[in-house]
């Protein structure tokens, strides 16, 4: 039985892979969590699974990266570094794998070079295999990550993002791989990143074969999703044609949009005489038996739409974005428009915008554009800031062809040619002063931040600070099981909750009565380690939801023309660019509003002086909420 334990030098690991007779399996627990549970699988559950997963003998456990760094802090209240540290204690041999968005790291837009390098260095302490991609397959966007991973002595796994359509030929991908190898050298794992689970088994087999024909020594890692229910077929063809590693996860948690079950992969390929190297089938089964009863606590995060979606071959949304897209549709009340959006508009938008790869952040641009096109009743009427950046080539060049002129005209107005001429191209993000950021964070925390805290802050400044403050107030809550952390509808009177805190000390909390006082405060009684405790909650101030007048798009536009700037759609304020008293000209940026990770600048339509700023960073707005008020200059 072969195993490549963590800390094996990269070249040695690659050599073992090349020579191996059979295939390895990566357990993509993170991708499963992201695709089928909106990234909410808790560290608590991963720790429960750790011992059996370690024994299962995977090539690697993909457990960090993608959107998880952000969601770990934002929704799971766990330090992404601490998560790796604790899992490493339980899993000393298994390599940990990440998914890195190249220049966009674990976020949605390009980071400065020095931030990329610092971040990779810090995560490389725990992460052995670095799967790196760029949604435009633009190799220079991944170069800084490649270099730092190599410097850290870890394994580079560059991706070719895969899609279907007339442009997506074998020769295109073979050429792209040559381009990657020219940068990285031969000792890499090449990932075919099929994030949508697109193409037939036959198509994947052909692609693997074509790559192996050209590069016989290339170690290929096939990554797919089971959205159409046929990823086992694609995996089988990939392995039969020479892929050395494939992705799957634990059957107790497999759903519709993520990876298929590990065990099914093993059973299927056994029929073809292919051995899953290093795998202990009993431990694979034991993992699922261990965590099966936890699944019910995650039900609230499973997709609104159940069942496989073979129509992914038409709309091409990646598995990792299915859950959040459907959630947005449900929240926005347009679930009924989904057939139009997914099956008609999204394929059109994809063709319009150059048939690139629908994966972060490109998938969000396609999705929000398609949604806006359908809901607005007019195509490209309200281009997001990120769509404009895409059109200007700020993420990288279009791989096959540029969108048509009329789309540019819609996005930038009649002067679009001048605008494109002046602004097109990749700006190159300038290095930031990291020491200055460290001081800014120290000021926010009131203490000297750790290196890890700084790295997390550089990824997601506002959310990282919120998380640090959460920990200070509520402690290390990753010790709580999903049955507590995700409890819906409160606990029952007299319910006993037992858990160990992060130091290993056992605690018991008994739920006592809830009382409302005459002042409208609520008293919650808990018996904490046999001491009666009282927790007081002030009466919530009702924000003026009931009194708010619903403004139409036309109202909002008209008000904007008078200097009364309102949110054009629901979202979160991620930057405020003006202060009271500032002089602004028409076209000046006032604030930036974010929805579905896509940022849209709110610009002034008038010249004047800012006389009110009604928003703060991090504030959630409904369409029509006031952002800024400007006193217009008299003409």
């Amino acid at each position, binding site marked *: 039985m072969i195993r490549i334990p963590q800390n094996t030098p990269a070249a040695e690991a690659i050599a073992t892979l090349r020579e191996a007779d059979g295939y390895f399996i990566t357990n993509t627990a993170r991708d499963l969590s992201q695709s089928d549970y909106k990234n*909410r699988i808790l560290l608590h559950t991963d720790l429960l699974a750790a011992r059996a997963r370690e024994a299962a003998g995977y090539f690697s456990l993909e457990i960090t990266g993608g959107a998880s760094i952000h969601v770990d802090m934002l*929704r*799971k*209240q766990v330090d992404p570094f601490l998560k790796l540290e604790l899992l490493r204690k339980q899993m000393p041999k298994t390599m940990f794998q990440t998914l890195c968005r190249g220049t966009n790291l674990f976020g949605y837009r390009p980071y400065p070079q020095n931030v990329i390098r610092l971040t990779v260095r810090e995560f490389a302490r725990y992460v052995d295999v670095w799967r790196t991609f760029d949604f435009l397959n633009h190799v220079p966007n991944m170069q800084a990550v490649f270099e730092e991973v190599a410097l850290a002595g870890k394994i580079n796994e560059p991706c070719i993002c895969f899609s279907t359509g007339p442009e997506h030929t074998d020769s295109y991908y073979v050429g792209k791989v040559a381009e990657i190898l020219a940068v990285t050298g031969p000792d890499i794992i090449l990932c075919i990143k099929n994030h949508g689970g697109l193409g037939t088994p036959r198509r994947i087999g052909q692609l693997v074969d074509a790559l192996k024909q050209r590069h016989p020594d290339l170690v290929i890692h096939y990554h797919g999703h089971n959205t159409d229910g046929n990823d086992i077929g694609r995996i089988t063809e990939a392995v039969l044609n020479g892929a050395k590693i494939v992705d799957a996860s634990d059957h107790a948690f497999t759903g519709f949009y993520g990876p298929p079950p590990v065990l099914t992969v093993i059973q299927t390929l056994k029929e073809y005489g292919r051995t899953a190297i290093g795998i202990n089938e009993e431990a694979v089964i034991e993992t699922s038996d261990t965590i099966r009863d936890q699944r019910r606590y995650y039900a609230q995060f499973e997709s609104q739409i159940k069942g496989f979606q073979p129509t992914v071959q038409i709309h091409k949304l990646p598995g990792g974005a299915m859950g959040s897209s459907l959630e947005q549709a449900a929240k926005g009340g347009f679930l009924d428009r989904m057939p139009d959006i997914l099956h008609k508009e999204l394929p059109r938008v994809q063709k319009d915008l150059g048939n690139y790869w629908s994966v972060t952040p490109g998938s969000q641009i396609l999705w929000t554009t398609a949604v806006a096109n359908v809901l607005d009743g007019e195509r490209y009427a309200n281009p997001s800031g990120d769509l404009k950046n895409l059109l200007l080539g700020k993420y990288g060049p279009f791989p096959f062809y540029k969108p048509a002129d009329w789309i540019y005209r819609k996005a930038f107005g009649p002067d679009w040619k001048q605008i494109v001429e002046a602004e097109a191209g990749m700006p190159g993000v300038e290095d930031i002063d990291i020491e200055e950021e460290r001081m800014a964070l120290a000021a926010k925390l009131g203490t000297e931040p750790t290196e890890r805290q700084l790295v997390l802050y550089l990824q997601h400044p506002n959310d990282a600070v919120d998380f640090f403050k*959460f920990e200070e*107030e*509520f*402690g*290390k*809550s990753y*010790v*709580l099981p999903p049955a*507590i*952390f*995700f*409890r*819906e*509808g*409160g*606990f029952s009177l007299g319910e006993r*909750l037992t*858990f160990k*805190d*992060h*130091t290993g*000390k056992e*605690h018991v*909390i008994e*739920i006592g009565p*809830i009382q409302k006082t005459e002042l409208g405060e*609520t*008293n*919650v009684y*808990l018996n*904490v*380690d046999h*001491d*009666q*405790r*009282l*927790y007081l*909650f002030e009466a919530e101030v009702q924000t003026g939801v009931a009194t708010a007048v619903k403004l139409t798009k036309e109202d909002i536009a008209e008000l904007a023309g008078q200097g009364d700037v309102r949110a054009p759609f629901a979202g979160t304020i991620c930057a405020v660019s003006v202060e009271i008293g500032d002089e602004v000209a028409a076209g000046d940026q006032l604030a930036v509003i974010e929805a579905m990770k896509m940022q849209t600048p709110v610009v002034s339509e008038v010249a004047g002086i800012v006389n009110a700023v009604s928003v703060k960073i991090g504030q959630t707005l409904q369409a029509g909420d006031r952002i800024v008020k400007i006193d217009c200059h008299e003409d």
Partner: protein
Amino acid sequence: MKKRILVANRGEIAIRLIRAIQELDYEAIAIYETPDKNSRHLRLADEAIWIGDGPRKDYLDVEKIIGTALRSNVTAIHPGYGFLAENPNLARACENAGLIFIGPPCDVIENLGSKVMARKIMAEAGIAMVPGTENLPAGAKGLEVAMEFVARHGFPIMLKATAGGGGRGIRRIENEAELREQYLIARAEAKAAFNDDSVYLEKVVLNPKHVEVQILADKSGNTVHLGTRDCSIQRRNQKLVEIAPAFQISEELREEICRTAVRAAKASGYFNAGTVEFLLDKDNTYYFMEINTRLQVEHTVTEMITGIDIVRSQINLAMGHDLDFRQEDVRTRGHAIEMRINAEDPQNNFMPEGGKTISVYRSPGGYGVRLDGFCYQGFTIPEVYDSLLVKLTVFGWSWKETVDRLRRCLSNYVITGPKTTIPFYLNLVNDPDFQRGVFDTSYLETHEHLFQYKEDNSEVNKLARLIAEIHYRGENRYAK
């Protein structure tokens, strides 16, 4: 019919007195003002009598208290500490009404209550005192006398109201300009506060220890001491932590101070329980400060190390019994520390937290732990009285054992509702200087870090707060 004793006080000390009275098989009669109507001492007494709406008016009304006592057929009155305890008028009124006052005779209270008289008595007995003046003459002559004193002893000096006490009516003067500026103000304030504008000067002993000796004296001339206490840890001259015996001083010095205390008590014709207070400077020179003619808050630490019930002794003495032990029978062993758990916010200049309701009250127990308190779960702390909730007194064989026990008790003490001094004390017991027993009256000023703590900061309480919030909202809003 049982003899009845009236408890002319409130709060924890009323309960302390009631316990001793009932143990002696007397009946305890409590009195109360309206704001105290839910006080626990009413329930423990054999009878509780309402004496008025107060606040702090009826408890101070000698005539009303004597009248109540006579109507209730009591034999004796115990004044506790504070209120009328050191007011000679109550002692005198008792004498006149044929009631027993549990304390020294009124003329002793009167003499020792006057700083000037007290100094005179001690001077005659040859007891060392902090250099000071007699009452300063009125007008410009007073300033002249003051300047002569300063010429001999230098600044800083204390300008004290003769009728003040308990930390009130005292101001520290650093230089001549301040003296000139403060002199008249001090007189005016003394007049307003104590209806007596007499003031005098005292040399300042820099950062002394506050050491005091517990005295018991019977009418047959048997005056014994029960050893020393160190009350150096104070804020604004109000004691917070008291220990017995005084620590980190030699046995010889301790003995000498105790003998001096007995001499001082005898010189003043003392009877019943009292406390002789000294300042002890860096060179181990000690100065007589004053005699407190009452039961002290901190008497508990002395009881812990001697085994002698001071309140029971007080009552027996007052009832005409002589002490049933001699000085050589008194043995002290181990260490005791008392902490005054107050409803105050140490981080906000010890601002009282009166008016708040105690929502949770869980006290520690076990070997060597004594609690003298009066609050309970659901009790609303009256805003009009002092903020002492409970005295936590622990005993231990060694100093370290005592501090360890104290830490254990403080970490298990749960009082929610008002802020208390508990988290501050937890910092204190973890302070290396306190652990070594090194502290003087400047301790709080020089240990600013003691004030840095977070309320309710244990990991389980943080997590419990999150669980409470999930329960309250019906969802975890930090996971949405």
